[in-house]
């Protein structure tokens, strides 16, 4: 009996804890595995995967076709007066590529925990000796790459159908702005993920934020057509300054509708949203565990 006990003793696993290189590596590995898991689920449903890849084109087309019908061509005098460039296709394309990434924050990250709850694996993830945020960040990584592929497809489609004239030299600074925007969006996504733990019908919160951010982001129109209050509200989200910055570098003759230091603005927003997100997630995590709400739908 004693011999059996010794034989079947559970294997002890030593988990790295604290702020050290080993722990960081372990956490990064957890994020990576969460990302791999999301890709495996994606590839398990090829029809759904292909549909999601073409959806950015499907939802961008109406903006472009509607714009072309409104002005009877691709050059808008009024838009040129507002922002210096009248090419509506380039203007809408550079704006719309951001929409998918708003979805990354609001839907993919926001719903990462809720999805685990649906699959019945949330509690199992919660008892693993890894940060709960790893799950959210793994989904963020997966969704960013997924959306990146969708954006490349959008670009190919628009380039082949309408042609695009963008400043090639502006691609690097535009990517830097994009990276800063994504950091801030990740912070925002962590807040939504935390909310989805408490609010069981969290899709309403996600959809509401998505709708509001779509209006406050100058995707298909310059910021100055919004009422003053809405313009001011748009500064707390990263998409408005990022879009203005990206267009400044990518579109020739583009005159930014709001003059400010986009890089500084985005650095402050990124730091603020990430700190706020981690704080809200930490508090929510403690709250739901204390109340035993993890299993509730």
């Amino acid at each position, binding site marked *: 009996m004693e011999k059996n006990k010794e034989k079947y003793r559970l294997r002890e696993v030593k988990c790295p804890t604290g702020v050290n290189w080993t722990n960081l590596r372990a956490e990064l590995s957890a994020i990576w595995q969460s990302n791999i898991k999301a890709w495996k689920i994606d590839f398990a449903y090829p029809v759904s995967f292909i549909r999601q890849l*073409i959806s950015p084109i499907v939802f961008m087309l*109406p903006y472009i076709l*509607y714009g072309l*019908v409104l*002005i009877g061509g691709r050059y808008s005098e009024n838009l040129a007066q507002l922002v210096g460039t009248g090419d509506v296709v380039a203007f809408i394309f550079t704006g719309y590529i951001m929409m998918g990434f708003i979805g990354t924050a609001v839907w993919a990250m926001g719903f990462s925990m809720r999805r685990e709850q649906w699959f019945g694996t949330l509690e199992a993830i919660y008892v693993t000796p890894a940060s709960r945020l790893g799950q959210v960040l793994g989904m963020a990584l997966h969704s960013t790459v997924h959306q990146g592929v969708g954006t490349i497809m959008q670009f190919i489609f628009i380039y082949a159908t309408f042609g695009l004239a963008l400043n090639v030299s502006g691609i690097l600074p535009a990517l830097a702005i994009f990276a800063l925007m994504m950091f801030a969006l990740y912070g925002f996504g962590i807040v939504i993920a935390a909310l989805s733990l408490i609010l069981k019908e969290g899709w309403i919160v996600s959809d*509401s934020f998505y709708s509001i951010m779509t209006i406050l982001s100058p995707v*298909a*129109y310059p910021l100055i057509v919004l009422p003053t209050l809405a313009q001011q509200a748009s500064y707390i989200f990263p998409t408005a300054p990022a879009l203005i910055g990206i267009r400044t570098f990518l579109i020739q003759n583009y005159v930014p509708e709001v003059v400010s230091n986009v890089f500084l603005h985005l650095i402050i927003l990124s730091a603020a949203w990430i700190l706020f997100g981690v704080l809200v997630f930490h508090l929510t995590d403690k709250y739901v565990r204390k109340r035993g709400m993890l299993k509730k739908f």
Partner: protein
Amino acid sequence: MTQSIYEPSSLRGNLFVVWDELVKNMKFLMAYPVIFIFWALFPILWFIPFILQGQAFVGGLQSANFAQITGSGEYIPFIVIGAVLNSYVNTLLYGMGENIRREAYQGTLDYVFAAPCNKAYVLIGKALSESVSSTIFAASQLTISALLFGMNLTLGVLLPVFFIVILLILGLYGLSLVLAAFSLMYKQSHDVSETIGYIFYVFSPVRYPIESLPTGAQIIGKLIPLTYALIIVRAIMLLGTSLSAMYWEIFALIIIDVVFLLAGFYMFNWMETKTKKSGTMSHH
């Protein structure tokens, strides 16, 4: 002597089934007031970017090019009508497939299909409840839009529009029956309904006139009931055309409705028999 429950159902009994299904679904809807408010208000936010885009591109509320193609240069009512009618597509297409799926999630699908009544009446009840909720949402969106953007809504305009909406709903019933059939057999009809939603969104004149599409795309658009509904409703509301002047479009809409409904009932009966035989009715 015990009475057999397998008596042939009377019409009155079947109408009770329809009514109870309708009441049940409305109770579900009312149990989540936040969802109710969301669908009544938030779809308005989805078309506001198009209105702002119009203002940025043309610098006013009228577009000369729009007037050349559609007969009216006012793009705001064009967008509002497109969005409100498209909301029927969103709720009916996704709603019916998901309604069947929800019964499976709740563990009540087996009971519904084992009930001694004609399943067509259960489906009619589900479809009616989706139509009632869609109409409540559409009415609230239209009213708010009318107040916000100053659209003219009179009874003389709304009555023929209501008639066209009923014809649109019938066509969508047919499609949603096909989706419900997919839901029974393949469990996840979500991708199919999303794909149909995409086709409707791109090939129907929801956001732009159908004339702005290439010829091939226009032909696909003319096989969709929403296309005719949008053309007729916009003609009535924006151009003041009478219903009788749109007889060709109404006829085309009725033909599409009949084809979709027949295909829907045939598919559903076929899939129901298949799932019953394979014993996969309650699988998730």
